[in-house]
């Protein structure tokens, strides 16, 4: 297992953090100012706007036309595209960071997407909902139905999320494809980092979502 480190959430002006999602703030902290970033699945551009406030050259890809058009209408450099099919168009090392925020579970080929992220970008930042979270487990174990949460309210038959995983699963995939985990953070239900001195299984149980900073090779 790689280094575990809880990132400081400092550096943001007081009051600024309130308007942004916890995982976005965490991602923004991981990106060095002045770098070039591609946000895959950028939604309505909230993260890109946050990055822009820190002098980062951000670009985005978004699947939904409505999302794209709202981004473009905010002056953001966003194109309509699909993480599964359109990442191949980008050259190697085109970006310092490629971000995949809460989107991995909606791709058809998460492994290929992850490999592409680390081809296009020198680093990748991936966040995803943790299906090992205790509330998820409880719903399946006790309720006997597919888990639904505040952040993942869709029913099993209309969800866009087709490849759920747990933190443990994701770490295993990273090991398999020789991806180095430089930093990893689990956030609890309230967006607070789970303390770093706790073992992985605690993260996997109490992390509602996880954010990983990844780079190529040497992970084993």
């Amino acid at each position: 297992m790689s280094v575990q480190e809880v990132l400081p959430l400092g550096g943001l002006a007081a009051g600024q953090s309130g308007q942004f999602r916890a995982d976005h703030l965490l991602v923004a902290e991981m990106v060095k100012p002045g770098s070039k970033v591609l946000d895959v699945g950028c939604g309505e551009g909230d993260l890109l706007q946050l990055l822009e406030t820190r002098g980062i050259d951000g670009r985005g890809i978004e699947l939904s036309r409505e999302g794209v058009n709202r981004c473009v209408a905010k002056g953001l450099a966003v194109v309509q595209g699909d993480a599964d099919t359109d990442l191949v168009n980008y050259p190697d090392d085109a970006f310092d960071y490629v971000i995949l925020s809460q989107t991995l579970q909606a791709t058809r080929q998460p492994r290929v997407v992850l490999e592409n992220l680390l081809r296009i970008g020198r680093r990748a930042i991936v966040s995803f909902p943790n299906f090992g979270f205790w509330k998820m487990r409880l719903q399946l174990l006790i309720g006997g139905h597919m888990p639904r949460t505040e952040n993942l309210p869709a029913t099993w038959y209309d969800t866009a999320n087709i490849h759920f995983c747990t933190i443990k699963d994701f770490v295993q995939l990273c090991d398999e494809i020789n991806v180095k985990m430089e930093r990893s953070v689990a956030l609890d239900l309230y967006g607070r980092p789970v303390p770093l001195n706790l073992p992985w299984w605690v993260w996997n149980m109490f992390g509602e979502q996880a954010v990983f900073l990844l780079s190529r090779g040497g992970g084993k």
Partner: protein
Amino acid sequence: MQVAIKRLIANEVDGQMGGVKSIPSPAISADERSHEVDHPSSQVAHFGTEQPLRLDCGVDLSPFQIAYQTYGELNADRSNAVLICHALTGDQHVANVHPVTGKPGWWETLVGPGRPIDPKHYFIICSNVIGGCMGSTGPASINPATGKVWGLEFPVITIPDMVRAQTMLIDRLGIDTLFAVVGGSMGGMQVLQWTAAYPGRVFSALAIACATRHSAQNIAFHELGRQAVMADPDWHGGSYADRGIHPHRGLAVARMAAHITYLSDAALHRKFGRRMQDRELPTFSFDADFQVESYLRYQGSSFVERFDANSYLYLTRAMDYFDIAADHGGVLAKAFAGIATRFCVVSFTSDWLFPTSESRALVHALNASSARVSFAEIETDRGHDAFLLDVPEFFDISRAFLQSAGKARGLTGNKDG
């Protein structure tokens, strides 16, 4: 568009007594149109023999002139110039009343006070393309070597030729880098040519409803239009001007065919359906029983009032030849390698002339070049024509793109535009 329909209905009422009716003769005389060719109601930049325009076909065009309109003021840094590139049948009168037709500027929805491209913030330039017929040198101009109208003696021109001429105009105006180059359809082709050939002179590019090459289907439609012009006995091998006539029937048919390609099945259905024109029952004749027929006839006849038939041949040809990738070893991304220009690409869902797939191919090439690009596809049933119509989402996107680019360019004051 509503005005157009009202006018076409009026036309039809006037013509009802005629029974079987072909396309009406133009209401505006050829004299009015040809006067604009040599003496445009615009500013004119003359380029003498010391400054020829080097054409792709190998000919040096000289002397030649460019007719252009400007709106707003160039700032002290000369950093706020926006070049608008017009489409096939457009001209330099982008935001003022047209001197021939008396109609409003063709892009007043986008360009003008309070619009996304506001003369309060930008120095806006729009020039008639080389090969056009509204004051820039083209086949309807006088050939100085013969003293007669060029006609088919005029050399074949290309989109790169049009842009090369525009660079000479921009030089003449003392502008090094354009803040933005903006255009739709053939205008969009010019935008892309600007970025591919003069990337350092274009800070931002707004390319709308266009493609990096003309498709086989589009070439086919253009050929149809050209054949319609040439089949008109009044065309006379292109030398109609010497005889004081104009092949308006052929040109009107060309326009009618082209106009269908600018619309969509859904838009035609919504606007006209199978509704009859001022009658309850079919007349069992070839009169314009259907509203859609009447509309097309109006489009055809009003077009020939302001456009030269040979110019139509030359400009459609220029579009056919356009293929940026072919000029870069067949690899589109090479055309934009290392480009710093900020791009915004816009397409419309129902545009089947320049479908979204063409814009997507462009965006992929720009991504491969790591260019900064925004790409929006706008949902509308209005077809290719949508870029000229009132589509608020398109205006929001254009405004935001230019404001964001303005911020990066250090332009102040374009925020409230």
